[in-house]
């Protein structure tokens, strides 16, 4: 398995666990109508930090165990794989961002009716977390496409 595929597996696994938990917790807060921007901000930063702390050593260990360079220059097949996955990932991100823009009126309505104490703050929190979610989701899909391509060429 090439180093880049290993990194993709590590990124997918870590992202699913760490950010899966984060977005599940955001959803739970939303369902309980208790969105706290400050709490979510620090929770996200913690999750981001933990993800980095897991991914970096995991990649270094994977490189060491496989006797591979940690960040080798990509060859032409790897560049092609990256380009294809980037293209699909970017297209997905664009579609999802436009979807959020189109859904913003509906989000504002939810904030106005269900978060009467601070509807403006709730709108901002929901929009920011939706943007974070679609960004993470597009990145996850991109990494999965990388893995699929490597498996097809293997």
């Amino acid at each position, binding site marked *: *398995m*090439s180093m880049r*595929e290993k990194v993709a597996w590590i990124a997918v696994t870590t992202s699913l666990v760490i950010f899966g938990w984060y977005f599940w917790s955001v959803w739970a807060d939303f369902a309980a109508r208790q969105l706290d921007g400050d709490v979510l901000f620090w929770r996200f930063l913690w999750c981001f930090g933990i993800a980095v702390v897991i991914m970096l050593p995991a990649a270094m260990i994977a490189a060491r165990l496989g006797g591979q360079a940690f960040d*080798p220059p990509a*060859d*032409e*097949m*790897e560049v092609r794989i990256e380009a294809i996955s980037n293209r699909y990932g970017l297209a997905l991100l664009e579609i999802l961002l436009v979807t959020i823009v189109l859904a913003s009126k509906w989000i504002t309505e939810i904030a106005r009716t269900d978060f009467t104490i601070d509807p403006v703050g709730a709108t901002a929190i929901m929009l920011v977390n939706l943007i974070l979610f679609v960004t993470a989701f597009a990145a996850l899909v991109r990494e999965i496409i990388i893995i699929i*391509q*490597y498996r*097809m*060429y*293997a």
Partner: protein
Amino acid sequence: MPAPPPISNTIRRLRFEHGEMTQQQLADAIGMTRQTVAAIEQNKYSPSLEAAFRIAEVFGVEIGVVFQWKADEEQGR
């Protein structure tokens, strides 16, 4: 992944004839990963012209000895 290109290659035989050269050794010689060499050898990935020339150079043969165009055979089927 697109359909395999109508190109065959003799990399496996050439590696055998060059002292059982490993895919990793060939990959190191042309600046690629072993996975890419394996994909080329199995005809799952078409290398660039530059990579094809590099492979031929490693074996000291003309590029036509390494890669053969099979479009005519495909049309004949």
